[in-house]
């Protein structure tokens, strides 16, 4: 195995330390709190922490393996997310072949393009080529019922579950002067984004009173939002040493990540409410489906990528 960047090791150890502390707190709450109405929440909290261990270990290992590990991991996550998405939405018999293309041609191709560092094609494969291919293939299939709804449903699924999510491992393409190509950038995005989700949940549970969007997402409160965004931004700023950013830039970038993450969670919730479900899936214990966990990443990753690329890659 090649020598690991000591900063990457530090950051990963930090994640494991945080999980260990969370596990102890979860255990303490389980033993200490006797109120029955709180116990369901605590059980869910402990299920979530357990799932976090699994997710962190898998993600950490793929980071250590290198680019191929991250591409395989995110490629599989895109497929699973797209599967959750299309299962929830109405599709018709005539969509079958178009969906097959989406899953087994466009998705692998998108990650392959990252693997060969072909930025120009990576950036347009889905917004240009797949965008035009999908309605054409549907037209050839010959079913005109709700044509535009079906075409846009598939286009949107490819954009969010594949294109947007693939921006996370695409960070490994960026060669930043004085920083190089580093998995640290990807870890930074994931840590800030996911911590923002977690902290919004924690602040919401502790202080949450005023709902932000009761129709779309009944669990989101102003207290949770403000507390989560501020604390995650603070942590993102404190982690400036693992990025190419100066501290004040790290603060602005983390703030952007947290706000985009919130936008992602809210938007993906609106789809769930429209379809009348609570979660996209059941794959991750305590969290729901892959898309329930990755909704914020889908929105934060492309913006983070383009900010870094615009300002830091010459």
């Amino acid at each position, binding site marked *: 195995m090649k020598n690991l960047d000591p900063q990457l090791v530090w950051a990963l150890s930090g994640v494991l330390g945080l999980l260990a502390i969370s596990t102890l707190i979860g255990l303490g709450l389980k033993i200490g709190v006797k109120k029955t109405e709180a116990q369901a929440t605590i059980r869910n909290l402990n299920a979530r922490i357990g799932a976090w261990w699994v997710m962190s270990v898998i993600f950490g290992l793929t980071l250590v393996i290198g680019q191929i590990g991250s591409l395989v991991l995110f490629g599989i996550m895109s497929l699973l997310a797209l599967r959750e998405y299309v*299962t929830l939405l109405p599709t018709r018999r005539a969509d079958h072949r178009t969906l097959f293309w989406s899953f087994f041609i466009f998705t692998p191709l998108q990650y392959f393009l990252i693997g060969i560092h072909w930025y120009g094609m990576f950036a347009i494969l889905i917004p240009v080529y797949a965008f035009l291919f999908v309605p054409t293939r549907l037209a050839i299939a010959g079913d005109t019922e709700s044509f535009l709804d079906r075409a846009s449903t598939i286009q949107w699924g490819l954009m969010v579950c594949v294109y947007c999510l693939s921006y996370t491992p695409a960070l490994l393409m960026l060669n930043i002067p004085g920083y190089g190509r580093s998995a640290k950038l990807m870890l930074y995005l994931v840590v800030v984004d996911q911590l923002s989700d977690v902290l919004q949940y924690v602040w919401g549970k502790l202080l949450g009173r005023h709902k932000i969007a009761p129709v779309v997402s009944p669990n989101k409160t102003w207290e949770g939002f403000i507390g989560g965004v501020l604390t995650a931004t603070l942590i993102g700023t404190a982690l400036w040493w693992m990025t190419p950013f100066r501290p004040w830039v790290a603060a602005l970038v983390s703030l952007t990540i947290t706000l985009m993450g919130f936008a992602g969670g809210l938007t993906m919730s609106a789809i769930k409410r429209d379809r009348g479900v609570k979660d996209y899936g059941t794959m991750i214990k305590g969290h729901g489906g892959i898309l329930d966990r990755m909704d914020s990443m889908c929105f934060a990753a492309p913006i983070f990528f383009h900010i870094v690329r615009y300002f830091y890659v010459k």
Partner: protein
Amino acid sequence: MRARPLAGMFAGVIAAAARMVSGVQVRWVDSEPDPRQAVYFANHSSHLDFVVLWSSLPAEVRAVTRPVAAQDYWNRGLRRAIAVNVFRAVLVARHVGKGEALDASGDPRLAIEHMLEAMGDNQSLILFPEGTRGTGEEVAAFKSGLYYLCRHRPGSRLIPAYLHNLNRILPKGEFLPVPFISKLTFGPAMALAAGEDKRAFLSRARDAVCRLKDLG
């Protein structure tokens, strides 16, 4: 007991793969997995139906459960090798409606005999009483095979099941699957009542399947 350990191991791998590909979420409603002899019957919309249903049974139930599959599709080459050796499928000629030509092997009585023989005294069957794959929207009227099976084996435990979304994964006429998350709901056991006539029984059995569909 399974005679071939290798085929048994392979069966476990296939079952795990089928559960992964179909993402199947299994639910037992007023019912639970039980290795005692039973006839599982479900709606039919995909070639994957019996694979998914069989794979969703716990290993000890799966070991004594044999799907009933159409000879005309499964009796060829690799398909046959998999169907017979891995799933231990009972291959029968499809029941053809009255007035349609029957070939020598298409006698429905012969199919029933095959099934009874396959059941022995401890084997369970998986049956799709619609006889042929539908579009997945409606459950078609049941063919009479289930009724005659029960006439020969009064008191058989019949377990209804509904398979969601298999028609979206591999619809009729397609050969490449698209991954959707499927759901499989098992319902409470029923049986042919004493003196119950064919029409009433078949429609009651169909209703049991449709009720599971409506549970979502």
